C-alpha cells in the first residue's frame, strides 16, 4: 500500500468527467468545489478517498468526484461508511447526505454514528426541502412553509441537527454556507483532519423548490464566538443560535472508535478446539 501523499494536488484532480444533473444555480455545485478544493488541500490521493452517499440531489456527489464512491440506498450511508472505515482505516471516508436522507430516514443512524465516533466526516447539504422528489417538507423545513403534502405548512418544530449531533457525541460540529465555498473548503479540511466523527452542515439553497433561499447569502453570518470544547457551552450556544451562524462551533476531545482489525492473534485452525470434547 502506497501511503505517500502527493504534494501539490489540484482540485481538478478530484473532479470526474461526469456532468452533474443538478439545476444550474444549485448550492451543491459550490459544495462540489469545496470538496475538490478541500481534498487538494489535504493532498490525499483520490484513490484513497471514499465518498459515501444515500439518495437525494446531494447524494449524487460521489460520481462527480474522481474518488471511490458508493451511491447507496436512502438514509443508510452512515452505516455503509462505518463498515468501510472500520475495515479500511487507511481510507479517508467522507459521507454526503441531505436533510431528508440524513435527518428523516437516516435519523436513527445519525444518532448512532455520532455515538460511535468512528473517524469520518459527515457532510449534510441542507436545503430545508426534499428536492429530488419535488418539494415535500423535510425535517428542517420551516413550520409555515406551504407544500403540496403539507398545505399551510407542517406546523412542526424543525429538527435541530447540530443539537442532536452534540447530544449524541459528535466530536466536531460546524455549519457552513455553500456560497462561502472558500470558508467551507477550509472547514472541510479541518473536519476531515479532526479525529472522530465530524459533522458539517452546509446550508445549500435549492434554486428550484426554494427560490426564497436566494436570501440565505444575506442571512448567514460568522458565529459571534469561536468554537468551544465544552459540550455544555456548545449546547447552549447551538440551541439558541438563529440557524445561520457559520463556522466551527464545537471541537470535542473524544477518542475515535477504532476497533482492532487486521491483526491475527490466533490461527483460524485453532477455533475448532472450542468444539472438541
Amino acid at each position: 500500500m502506497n501511503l505517500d501523499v502527493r504534494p501539490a494536488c489540484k482540485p481538478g484532480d478530484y473532479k470526474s468527467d461526469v456532468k452533474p444533473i443538478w439545476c444550474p444555480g444549485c448550492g451543491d455545485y459550490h459544495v462540489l468545489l469545496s470538496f475538490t478544493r478541500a481534498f487538494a488541500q489535504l493532498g490525499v490521493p483520490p484513490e484513497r478517498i471514499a465518498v459515501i452517499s444515500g439518495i437525494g440531489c446531494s447524494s449524487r456527489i460521489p460520481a462527480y468526484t474522481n474518488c471511490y464512491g458508493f451511491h447507496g440506498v436512502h438514509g443508510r450511508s452512515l452505516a455503509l461508511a462505518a463498515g468501510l472505515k472500520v475495515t479500511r482505516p487507511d481510507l479517508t471516508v467522507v459521507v454526503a447526505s441531505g436533510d431528508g436522507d440524513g435527518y428523516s430516514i437516516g435519523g436513527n443512524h445519525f444518532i448512532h454514528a455520532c455515538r460511535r465516533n468512528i473517524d469520518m466526516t459527515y457532510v449534510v447539504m441542507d436545503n430545508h426541502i426534499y428536492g429530488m422528489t419535488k418539494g415535500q417538507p423535510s425535517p428542517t423545513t420551516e413550520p409555515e412553509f406551504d407544500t403540496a403534502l403539507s398545505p399551510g405548512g407542517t406546523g412542526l418544530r424543525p429538527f435541530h441537527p447540530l443539537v442532536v449531533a452534540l447530544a449524541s457525541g459528535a466530536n466536531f460540529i460546524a455549519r457552513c454556507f455553500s456560497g462561502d465555498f472558500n470558508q467551507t473548503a477550509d472547514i472541510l479540511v479541518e473536519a476531515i483532519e479532526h479525529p472522530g466523527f465530524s459533522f458539517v452542515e452546509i446550508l445549500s439553497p435549492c434554486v428550484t423548490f426554494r427560490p426564497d433561499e436566494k436570501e440565505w447569502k444575506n442571512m448567514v453570518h460568522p458565529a459571534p464566538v469561536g468554537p468551544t470544547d465544552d459540550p455544555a457551552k456548545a449546547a447552549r450556544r447551538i440551541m439558541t443560535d438563529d440557524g445561520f451562524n457559520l463556522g466551527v462551533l464545537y471541537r470535542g476531545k473524544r477518542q475515535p472508535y477504532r476497533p482492532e482489525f487486521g491483526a491475527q492473534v490466533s490461527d483460524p485452525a485453532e477455533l475448532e478446539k472450542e468444539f472438541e470434547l
Partner: protein
Amino acid sequence: MSKRAATPKVASLADLFALAWQIEADAVERYKLLADQMETHNNPELVKVFRDLARAEGIHAEEIRRLAGDIDVVEHARKTGGWKGESPEEADLSAAHYMMTPWHALQMALVGEKRALAFFTGIVETTKDAKIKQMAAEFVEEEAEHVNLVHRLLRKYPEPAEGWADDPDPPNTVE
C-alpha cells in the same frame, strides 16, 4: 453576510502577475463549468455564450503570461497559493438558471469584470512599489476595457421580459 475571499497580498511583481493570471485562468474554468451546465440542461444559446466568454478569458490569461516575460506565473501562483477562494471573475454559480438568457450571463460577467477592476484599482491606490503600481495601472486599463466590452455586448441583448423563467413543464423526479 456571505463574502468572497479576502484580498491577497501583492508584495512583488510576480505576485501581481500571478494573481492577474489566476483571475483569468479561474474565470476560464468557471465559464467552462457553466457552459457544461448549460449543455446538460439544453440551453445551447448559453453554451455558446459561456464558451465564448471562456475563450476570451483564455486569451487574456495568455496575454498576461506573455506580458510577465520571465516570470513563471503558473508556478508562482501554485507556490504562493494565489486567491484563496473565489477570485474576482469567477462567476457566481448561484446566479445561474437553466433557462437563463445571454443578458443574465453578461450581467454575471459584468460583476466579475467590475470586481477585477476594483482589485487592481485598489493595488494602484495602496501599493508603495512603483513597478507594481505601473503594472497595476495597466491592468486597470485592461479591465476597464473588459467592462466596456461587456456593456457593448449587453446592448445587443436586452433585459428579458418577466416570465423568462416560466417553464410549462413541471419539475421531474429522477429518483
